[in-house]
């Protein structure tokens, strides 16, 4: 099912949680709503679910105006960060809940419910655990039960509110990959809310970045990572180094490096910053670029993070560079060593943004 939002607005007192948002989610896509806390991503999800009514605007399901549909009629599966499993019910009863509360005429027979729950238990790899209570399960297992419970009623859209936020990183990683596989097999339309850009990039087909109730940018994860259209999105989608840009004789410089080639030289007197990701900094011979000193080296599995103090930069704000383990071992970089920096890629924004 496709979902469209048209001019959706939601105020809480004077605070605009959602400010005139237009958004499209195509059938079968997994879309991530990404943003810092307070950006309105959860409110947006709750509006789509029918848990909140927008003050203005429309929510369209397959082109039909669903803005005022009661939540029970929307056929949305909802999954919360803290699972919200019914603690007095077993795993089986939790998953069967949506089937058992159906009107008598629509309710499947007992044997049919049993069969459906069994197949969902297999799907979430918890076959044989149906008589356990939520308190007896691990966090990852609970979240899978919550997902199965949502899937039991054959929702047209699956809405996930920070579903992996309460789990430790190992489990989170596994569950993310599992969700992606599940999505590829079943092809339901899903929207996942997260504040973790890694998660959004890893799992989603498209990302919508929200900031202060507005959409900053929407698009395909890899493109947005490489071509953010604002400093906010650039910062939010990954680590960045921020360096002041100086204009001299119509050319733009960061330190001694001329960056005019790959960006428009900013006009006017305003201050500008260049945003450069750690892996876009190249480290070479001292004479090859901006002179810098290595002040810290951290080997993190396959990558190595190096802190560099560039000439003319404040000492307490070292640049962060990332190189591969192979490269690090070939070059023998060490603390205190003098090196030259060059940038592979950068983007310039007005400093105020």
């Amino acid at each position, binding site marked *: 099912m496709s979902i469209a939002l048209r001019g959706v607005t939601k105020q809480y007192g004077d605070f605009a949680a959602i400010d005139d948002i237009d958004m499209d989610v195509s059938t079968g896509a997994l879309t991530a709503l990404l943003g810092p806390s307070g950006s309105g991503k959860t409110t947006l999800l709750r509006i789509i*679910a*029918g*848990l909140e009514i927008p003050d203005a605007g429309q929510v369209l399901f397959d082109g039909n105006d669903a803005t005022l549909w009661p*939540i*029970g009629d*929307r056929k*949305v*599966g*909802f999954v*919360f960060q*803290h699972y*919200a499993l*019914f*603690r*007095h019910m077993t795993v089986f009863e939790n998953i069967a*809940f*949506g089937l058992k*509360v*159906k009107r008598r005429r629509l309710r499947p027979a007992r044997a049919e419910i049993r069969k459906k729950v069994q197949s969902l238990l297999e799907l979430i790899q918890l076959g044989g655990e149906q008589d356990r*209570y939520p*308190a007896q399960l691990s966090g990852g297992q609970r979240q899978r039960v919550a997902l199965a*419970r*949502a899937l*039991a*009623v054959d929702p047209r859209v699956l809405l996930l509110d920070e579903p992996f936020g309460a789990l430790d990183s190992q489990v989170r990683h596994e569950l993310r990959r599992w969700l992606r596989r599940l999505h590829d097999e079943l092809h339901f339309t899903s929207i996942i809310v997260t504040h973790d850009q890694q998660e959004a990039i890893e799992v989603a087909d498209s990302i919508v970045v929200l900031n202060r109730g507005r959409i900053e940018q929407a698009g395909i994860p890899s493109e947005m990572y490489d071509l953010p259209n604002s400093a906010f999105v650039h910062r939010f989608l990954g680590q960045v180094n921020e360096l002041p840009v100086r204009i001299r004789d119509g050319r733009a410089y960061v330190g001694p490096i001329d960056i005019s080639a790959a960006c428009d030289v900013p006009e006017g007197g305003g201050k500008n910053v260049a945003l450069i990701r750690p892996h876009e900094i190249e480290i070479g011979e001292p004479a090859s670029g901006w002179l810098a000193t290595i002040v810290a080296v951290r080997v993190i599995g396959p990558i190595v993070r190096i802190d560099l103090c560039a000439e003319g930069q404040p000492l307490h704000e070292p640049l962060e560079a990332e190189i591969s383990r192979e490269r690090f071992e070939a070059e023998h970089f060490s603390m205190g060593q003098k090196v030259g920096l060059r940038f592979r890629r950068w983007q310039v924004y007005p400093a105020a943004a």
Partner: protein
Amino acid sequence: MSRLLLIATALLFLGVFLLLPLLAVFVQALANGFGAYYVAVSEPMAWAAVKLTLLVAAIAVPLNLVFGVAAAWAIGKFEFRGKSALITLIDLPFAVSPVIAGMIFILIFGAHGWFGGFLRAEHVRVVFAVPGIVLATVFVTFPFIARELIPLMQAQGNADEEIARSLGATGWQCFWRVTLPNIRWGLLYGVLLCNARSMGEFGAVSVVSGHVRGLTNTMPLHVEILYNEYNYTAAFAVASLLALLALLTLAGKNVLEWRQPELRPAARRPRDGTRREPA
């Protein structure tokens, strides 16, 4: 060593302040043997007091059960104007001395009260009759269930209900299948406290009852009358019945908990320590 000391202190305290008085009631009640005990409790006036006490509890507890759940639901799950005023209002019976609570009803429904003339014309007796006793008891036990449920429901939030609704449950199904099971231990505890208090209430009931033996005497009032007549054995015999009722409710709670072992941890929640009542 310090652990032993702590346990010993706690046990000593329990023994002196809880077990000893309870034991004393039964010892005193049986001081003249089982025969005298049986005569004292089967005496018609005592029996009337037992029946009235049970009747009052049977009306007051369900009323406050419905009210308590409704109020806690509204406060715990919704945002609205005047919420803090409502919470304060619910606490009022805790803040007001029960004697004053009784006086209020005399003032309103008494012969010289606001509605006194109207009630006399309609031949309805409120004060110095069973309706007055019920009203006073409902007033005094008003906060017990609501107070027990409000923090619980606030802590639980709306997530379970929202999920249930999204799965297609109606409001009713939501309440019976999700909300009620989530609060049942707190509710049970509130009902027990409310029940214990409504059977044991003395001050407010004493003011509105008029002490008509066999008609408007509840058990606590009957105990007092017997005591004032120096009829110690009978006083303690009736008191022991009251204590027995209390012990039975506690035993009932334990049996219920024991029958649902997998749910027990959910019932153990930190409760607010602000519950206190004036003498």
